[in-house]
């Protein structure tokens, strides 16, 4: 066996045991090879067996599963024939693992340092002092803040991006020959993801480590891997170099995947910002939502949304983007009346809405529907699909029996689902089907405005793309308006007319969705846009080159006024940006940006002199 093949898997079969004694194949006849120092990407959707294969490289199968055939050779060891004892010495020493969700993979009861140096300690690789020195060195290499002291912290005190990097440090502490990454950035915001990816790449390249990278995101594959294997239903669909697979996919499924990552921007021109009130279906002005003690003005001290003003033109789509925790979901809950606001006004179709849903009229509730994020949680598992949809029809339109059934069928047609589904329970449906039912239920009310909260987040790219397509189609035929809340900029470009950028509860910018990549923008918008991975080799290096400041990643709410983005901003002007109200510029095309910098500065970042704003008023 040549050392050149660091990993070699031949005809691997893994089965899962059913409770009734039968088995189901999870991985079928998979073969793959990785040369020393190279990175292999395992690409696939959920259920493709990619994590199972990755874990099997460490000789680990989850309870209820078993390797039923094939051979796994890793760094010269025949993994399938190793004893428990041998495996223990092998794992964490020769090959190590970076789990998908560091938040749960770190033991909450132990400090970071304890866990990071544990592999070194249990394998007797080095003394405690050596291990700690090594750890700090790795922390530094992974660009973690305060490398000397961060180890004393506990998992709950750290952000997702930091934990993911700490987990990489844990994997690297013993200088393993191979590291397996299992979707290490999936749970992260794009702005964090780019930093983590960059850190990984630097460290791996430095140490000549062989890697396996499990992901469903082709753009990441393009940045980090040399070879790729595309999996579906536990079988290999295609394998080859990354460049070939992304550039010239042979397999039909691979082609679909690649296509899904390149959602074309919407073909129709964006609806302009409507100036007339009648043209707008929804208007938010200076809405404040929060909790905690009341200030002197009777407003909550801790704010989730602060002076949010937005408008949705009739028949168009407003996208709302931002990092996790910026208040996106609260905004959706506020508009739908589930979270009353403390101040401000919401006008829907010319009528002022009551803050609480209970105080709204049935007609208002009918015309404003919400499609929530997680399709698994949004359909009552105890109800058949038919009952779910018909309940809305009965509730709002008084339809019953055959009439309701006929209407439900029509709605299923509308979202392209077979009628047979009416008799099924949600558990029997796939994720994409559930999201379509979710949509059909909202449409059953015949709404004017549909709030879509992260509806594609939990879906595989191919399925998500289809949902977006459906949304656009329904808008065209029914003329409904959407508020589309997402962190996915591709999706925004595909379906939105306007886009509002939310940061720490503030709208920092509202603009045309197609102009995101050009023209004058808020520094945060630019950071966000530039962080979205592109499916070309070298994007990561380019993007990192553009980032100037390594800001504090966690957005800290400032109560003392000033720009919330101040600490992370690469154009900040200390002494000016951190105090007083932020001026709002209105651009000629109707876009609005909240920044102290002039439009000219914003249009040319790194530009010379701050110019006077065109229109500015105190917000």
């Amino acid at each position, binding site marked *: 066996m040549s050392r050149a093949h660091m990993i070699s898997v031949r005809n691997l079969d893994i089965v899962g045991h059913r409770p009734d004694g039968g088995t189901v194949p999870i991985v079928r006849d998979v073969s793959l090879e990785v040369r020393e120092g190279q990175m292999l990407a395992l690409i696939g959707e959920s259920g493709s067996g990619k994590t199972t294969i990755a874990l099997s490289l460490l000789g680990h199968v989850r309870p209820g599963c078993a390797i039923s055939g094939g051979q796994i050779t890793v760094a010269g060891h025949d993994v399938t024939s190793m004893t428990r004892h041998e495996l223990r010495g092998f794992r964490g020493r020769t090959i190590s693992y970076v789990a998908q969700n560091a938040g749960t993979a770190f033991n909450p009861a132990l400090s970071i340092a304890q866990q990071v140096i544990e592999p070194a300690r249990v394998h007797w690789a080095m003394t405690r002092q050596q291990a700690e020195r090594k750890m700090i060195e790795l922390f530094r290499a992974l660009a973690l803040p305060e490398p000397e002291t961060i180890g004393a912290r506990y998992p709950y005190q750290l952000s997702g991006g930091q934990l993911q990097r700490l987990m990489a440090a844990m994997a690297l502490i013993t200088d393993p020959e191979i590291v397996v990454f299992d979707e290490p950035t999936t749970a992260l915001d794009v702005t964090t993801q780019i930093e983590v990816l960059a850190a990984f790449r630097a460290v791996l390249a430095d140490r000549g480590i062989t890697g396996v990278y499990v992901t469903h995101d082709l753009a990441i594959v393009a940045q980090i891997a040399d070879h790729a294997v595309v999996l579906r239903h536990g079988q290999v669909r295609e394998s080859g170099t990354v460049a070939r697979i992304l550039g010239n996919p042979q397999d039909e499924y691979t082609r679909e995947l690649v296509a899904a990552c390149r959602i074309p921007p919407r073909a129709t021109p964006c609806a302009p910002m409507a100036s007339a009130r009648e043209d707008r279906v929804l208007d938010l002005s200076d809405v404040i939502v929060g909790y905690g003690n009341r200030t002197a003005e009777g407003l909550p001290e801790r704010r989730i949304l602060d002076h949010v003003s937005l408008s949705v033109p009739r028949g168009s789509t407003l996208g709302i983007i931002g990092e996790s925790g910026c208040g996106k979901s609260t905004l959706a809950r506020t508009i739908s009346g589930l979270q009353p606001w403390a101040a401000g006004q919401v006008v829907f179709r010319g009528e002022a809405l009551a803050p609480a849903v209970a105080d709204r009229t049935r007609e208002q509730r009918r015309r404003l529907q919400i499609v929530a994020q997680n399709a698994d949680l949004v359909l009552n598992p*105890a109800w058949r699909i038919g009952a779910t949809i018909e309940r809305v029809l009965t509730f709002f339109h008084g339809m019953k029996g055959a009439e309701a059934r006929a209407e439900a069928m029509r709605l299923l047609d509308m979202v392209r689902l077979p009628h047979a589904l009416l008799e099924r329970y949600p558990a029997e449906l796939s994720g994409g089907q559930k999201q379509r039912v979710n949509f059909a239920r909202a449409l059953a009310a015949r709404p004017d405005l549909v709030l879509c909260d992260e509806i594609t987040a939990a879906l595989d790219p191919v399925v998500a793309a289809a949902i977006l397509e459906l949304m656009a189609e329904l808008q065209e035929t029914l003329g409904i308006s959407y508020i589309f809340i997402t962190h996915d900029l591709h999706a925004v470009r595909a379906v939105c007319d306007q886009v509002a950028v939310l940061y720490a509860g503030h709208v920092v910018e509202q603009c045309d969705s197609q102009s995101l990549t050009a023209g004058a923008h808020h520094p945060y918008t630019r950071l966000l846009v530039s962080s979205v991975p592109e499916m070309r080799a070298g994007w990561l290096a380019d993007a990192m080159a553009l980032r100037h400041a390594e800001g504090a990643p966690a957005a800290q709410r400032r109560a003392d006024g000033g720009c919330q983005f101040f600490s992370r901003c690469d154009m900040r002007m200390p002494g000016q940006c951190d105090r007083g109200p932020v001026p709002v510029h209105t651009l000629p095309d109707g876009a609005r940006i909240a920044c102290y910098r002039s439009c000219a500065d914003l249009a040319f970042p790194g530009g010379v002199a701050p110019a006077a704003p065109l229109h500015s008023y105190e917000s």
Partner: protein
Amino acid sequence: MSGMTTGFRALRLPSLTPAQRVMGLFGFWLVLAVCGPFFAPYAPGQIIDTEVFAPLSHRHWLGTDYLGRDLGSRLLYAVRYTVLICTLSTAFSCGCGILLGIATTATPAWMEQVAGRLMDGILSIPSLLCALLVIAAFGDSLLALVLTLGVIYTPGAYRTSRALALRIARMDYITVAVARGEGALFIIWREILPNMRGPLLADVGLRFIYAVLLLSNLSFLGLGVQPPLVDLGSLVRENVLGLVYGSGAVILPTIVIGVLTVGINLVLDGTSRR
């Protein structure tokens, strides 16, 4: 040979869902409770032999008890009363507990506090002493027994159902229903309750078993069904002296209690394991 195995396989019960299995076993005991006494050869109070603690014989299959009554007949009646009392009290405790548990997820915080303190209070009094007090105050009629056992096990049902309801109340489909403007009753009854069915069933079973056990131990304080009727625990208790003679009058009802509780528990364990 293979024909036989196929035959057996054909005979095997169709694969049942855990809920069906629980209900099936439970149904068996209910049927036994309702119909059993009709097959009793003697009246529960009839003395049929001068020999007390008589062993098993052809005249009275399971022997006699401490008064010389037919043990088999008494056992059939005991199953009836244990199963019925425990079923009713479980229905009461779970009914109250679940209703309160779900309701307090929607009511103002102070109501939840009041309910919580109330439940804590009930929980903090040792159950046997609580039963002693209540029954001493209100007599040991069937109704009093059922209500006492019911009240004692309400806090447990309350805690379980509240935890479940809280989890479900956070689900998006509840959000959607609230946003649609559905009434509180509709949400509790149609949206929340059906989804608690599985875990609740396990909890209901557990409460049933606790009720059986407490009823058995109540007999130690001389409380139970009015004679000559009897529940399983009292049957053991009144014949406990037979122990020294190795009488079936102690052993058989104990075995029946064991089969009743362990059986239902095992099936419930099975549901939670799968």
